């Protein structure tokens, strides 16, 4: 849970502070309520921590962070597995 992982917003859900994000092929809903004023849209990248988008980042930063995380091994795999089990709606 200590990790913040980058995800690309695929779709902003109507009427709720949720967005569908793509994290290395895993698509799940995350809460975007902490980034109210950022005007998030599909195609934007965010850092996701325990089901919440924490900050908006640019694509280059997202790619660099993903490469860094992939290199750390088990902790990252566990995080992606946990995300896969998540059913935020």
């Amino acid at each position, binding site marked *: *849970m200590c*990790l*913040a992982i980058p995800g690309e917003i695929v779709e902003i859900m109507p009427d709720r502070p949720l967005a569908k994000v793509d994290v290395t092929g895993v698509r799940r809903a995350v809460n975007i309520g*902490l980034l109210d004023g950022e005007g998030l849209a599909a195609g934007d990248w965010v850092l996701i921590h325990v089901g919440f988008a*924490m900050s908006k980042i640019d694509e280059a*930063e997202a*790619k*660099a962070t993903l490469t*860094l995380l992939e290199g750390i091994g088990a902790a990252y795999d566990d995080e992606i597995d946990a995300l896969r089990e*998540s059913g935020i709606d």
Partner: protein
Amino acid sequence: MRFVDEYRDAGKARALAASIASLCEPGRHYKFMEVCGGHTHTIYKHGIEDYLPEGISLVHGPGCPVCVIPMGRVDDAIHIASQPDVIMTSFGDMMRVPGGDGSFFDAKAKGADIRMVYSPLDALKIAQQNPDRRVVFMGIGFETTAPSTAMTVLRAAAAGVTNFSVFCNHVTILPAIKAILDSPDLRLDGFIGPGHVSTVIGCRPYSFITDDYGKPLVVAGFEPLDLLQSVHMLLAQLAAGRSEVENQYGRVVPWDGNAKALDVIGRTMEPRPYFEWRGLGFISHSALRMRDEYAAFDAERIFDIPGGRVADPKACQCGEVLKGVLKPWECKVFGTACTPETPIGTCMVSSEGACAAYYNFGRFTRERVKEATR
């Protein structure tokens, strides 16, 4: 991938290292503390200390929220989990943390209903799907994680959910840094500030470290070159006689933090008078509890909590490791009695703990050092 290469470029790292060496006063020894498990990870994984002159050491502070939970709180959580109709929910990182009487995994094996969740929102969902059960979320983490718990409580309140509560163990980093600065054990020259905590609290709250204690602090990113550049910025401040808060990670961390995140924490939680940190003891105003307005969501008011203190096992030196007094490999049981498979102390449990990070990656660093000096 040009961006990645930029952050890993060995040539740039060597150039930075040379510039770092030129900023060091001959004969002076520098100690910089990082207080973020992610930084600890990068330092060991990429052998950052191999790039630094001998006079600089990086010491690891209490930057792993799982590691600082005292054993008594784990016992309290297991006590709650063992009550009738309770479903305890927790991040996976907590599952193997030993209490005085075993871990969540042990309690689960004995029949307690303890479930791993990715997000507090998943815990809330379990509550909504099980209206006849009492669902408790084990809230852990620094300011990075507390807003998520706060948002979930607000959502539960708005949805009228009455069977969901939080066992709140959220901690705040600034009082812990102050406790370390006030401790006579360690003389520090500066701090590498935590990247993700700072996305929430911003950079301004660190100013007591620079103004009252005269130590520079640089908020840093997680790439190897981020950390080298941060060390460079700290040394440049010291060389110029400055002690200021600087933001090396501006591409992610806004100077003012995240106002919404701070607002939701403040609406639902308040500082505790004191909280026990594993290894550091009791620290004033260093953790959060639920506000009176959200008492209905506070597991500490719903359940009778034993609240006992449990001393760490004698052989375990996590306390010294968390304060940066000992390096992981200087602990008596490191890598022998205490390994990630059979952890005695919390620093070996969490992948962000200094001991686990060093156990997993540090051996490569040692080999690299040997090669370099051969």
